[in-house]
């Protein structure tokens, strides 16, 4: 996983609320067994027409806008749990998504892939949308260590909340698997006294016979 500590970048605003993962990457493009290569189908139906023609009006097709930060309306990433949504955003080049509200599973998926979801207040989000509509070259700085997002070279900043554990993971570029594997022995001992253990063992021996 890639580390994130400080990011200074321009942003791409999509001021639409309730963007679901079916919009981020439609289900018909999930047929790959790799993690890479989903970026080309990010927001597929918004970027291209049914015939595969480029829709000039959509912001990702506008060469005047670029950046590693995606600015979106509230309740981003709702719907299907597909991690492909986070992969496609990351693959396209985004490292930070800013919104006032994220869907649960999307947030976890993003954090597991080094894509930082920043949850800020609705007021500050609307303010950021406004600043970018005045000046699209504006730079935003994200300081993960201090949990601050601000407009570069200005004093207008906002704190964002972040779980301490996840923060260290992102700062170090570690993920959950490393931690869980280190608990191997503990899990084994837990398993023995777990609620379903005894019943399950006999259940499984029996079940093998009917298969």
């Amino acid at each position, binding site marked *: 996983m890639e580390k994130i500590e400080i990011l200074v970048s321009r942003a791409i605003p999509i001021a*639409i*609320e*309730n963007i*679901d993962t*079916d*919009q981020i990457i*439609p*289900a*018909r493009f*999930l*047929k*790959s*067994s*790799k*993690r890479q290569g989903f970026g080309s189908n990010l927001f597929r*139906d918004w970027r291209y027409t*049914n015939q595969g023609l480029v829709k000039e009006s959509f912001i990702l097709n506008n060469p005047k806008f670029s950046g590693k930060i995606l600015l979106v309306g*509230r*309740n981003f990433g*709702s*719907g*299907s*749990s*597909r*991690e492909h949504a986070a992969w496609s955003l990351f693959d396209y080049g985004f490292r930070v998504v800013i919104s006032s*509200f994220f*869907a*649960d*599973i999307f947030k*976890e*998926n993003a954090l*597991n*892939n080094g894509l930082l979801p920043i949850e800020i207040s609705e007021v500050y989000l609307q303010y950021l949308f406004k600043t970018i509509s005045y000046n699209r070259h504006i730079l935003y700085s994200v300081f993960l260590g201090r949990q601050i997002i601000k407009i570069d070279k200005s004093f207008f900043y906002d704190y964002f909340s972040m*779980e*301490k*554990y996840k923060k260290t993971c992102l700062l170090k570029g570690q*993920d*959950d*698997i490393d*931690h*869980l*594997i280190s*608990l*191997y022995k*503990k*899990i084994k001992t*837990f*398993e023995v006294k*777990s*609620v*379903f253990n*005894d*019943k*399950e063992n*006999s*259940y*499984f021996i*029996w*079940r093998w016979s*009917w298969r």
Partner: protein
Amino acid sequence: MSKTLFDKVWYSHIVESFPKGPSVLYIDRHFIHEVTSPQAFEELKTRVLLIFKKERIIATVDHNVPTKNQHLPILDALSRKQVQILFENCKINGIDFFGLLHNYQGIVHIIGPELGYTLPGMTIVCGDSHTSTHGAFGSISFGIGTSQVSMVMASQCLLQKKPKQMRIHLVGLTKISVTPKDIILYIISKVGTDGAVGYFVEFSGKVFRRMSMEGRMTVCNMSIEIGAKGGLIAPDKTTLNYLNKIKFLPKDILLEEAMPYWRTLYTESDIFLDREYYFYASDITPMITYGTNPGMGFSIVRRIPKINVDYHQSISYMGFKAGYSLIGKPIQYVFIGSCTNARIEDLRIVANVVKNKKKAFHVLALIVPGSKQVIYQAKKEGLDIILKKSGFEFREPGCSACLGMNEDKLPFGAYCISTSNRNFVGRQGFGARTLLTSPLVAAIVAIEGKIIDVNNFYGKN
């Protein structure tokens, strides 16, 4: 201290917890399917890790499989490859795999309960958001992403922060012709699609107590659409009766050892959860959605409300206008299936409506049963003959037109009455317009060829 149902199950599965941080949650059951698992196996391979406990993983294929001629090779090369990869991964690792020709193949959330893999008090995960279905048995079940799939494979545990808890209580009883699907569509329309983000929802009230297991599964299935992590209903007599009927469960062990434990699984009465909603069940009428998220639903007889700009966009995608009524709207497609409404009970409802009637001439009506076992039961009861006689296409199990990953896609601009769970833009095919309803309404629409009030239909016939 009094404990809730959720607390009881949660705390019995904690291996270790960080102070003020996430907990390590032990997972009892892990379902995998072909779309979100290949990358997870890949991850394990690159890290040189073994599967921690292969007995707790169950694999099936459902998302991109064809629903016609399943005995033939899959036409789409990419789909075929995904199915092939899952098969090989399962073979190498010794995981139970229910392939296309297996008698127990079906949609993961339908085969889980019906084969007895889902039991009360379990923790269940799957790389699919509708895993919340299994909450109907009083288990903690939620959807996860692919990275988390690989975590569970590697350690049988997940790092999870304890969610807040919400209770949705229905007061009183519903009217006749209101099905569980209408109840959950009503709840979604009231709570909103993000009303329960960060919460685990418990459904309570007389309505749920009297509901069949299939109905409870439908309700819990769509609890994800209010943004909740999952939904659950306390196990009771209905649950135990359902489990007793499953032929694969060893009854003696279950009854003697598990029953006393399951009887303790309920929320104690003197406790308030973090958030509580109360609705009157008598307010609920047959529902339909008119927009592009499941929260945009209303009673089928109402007119489309005028709300805000965002709504305007999705209404224009659907080709509607504020102030219009949906009654009389001609429909070209009817889809009955998906993990929400493809159980035997749903087929019974449909068969009951369409018996001795013909579907409307211009309607293409598709029935995709949830699993091979559902088909088997339907054939036993003669439902497939009734449905085929009325002009329905009776397909083989899979997710099918719910998310349009296989060939069952809808053409641009077509209206589809669907018993699935999501009506997002382009979900059933590019430009396709989805209206979510219960199987009862869907069956009536298939007969009439247009949207009609349920009460009028029964008045006529």
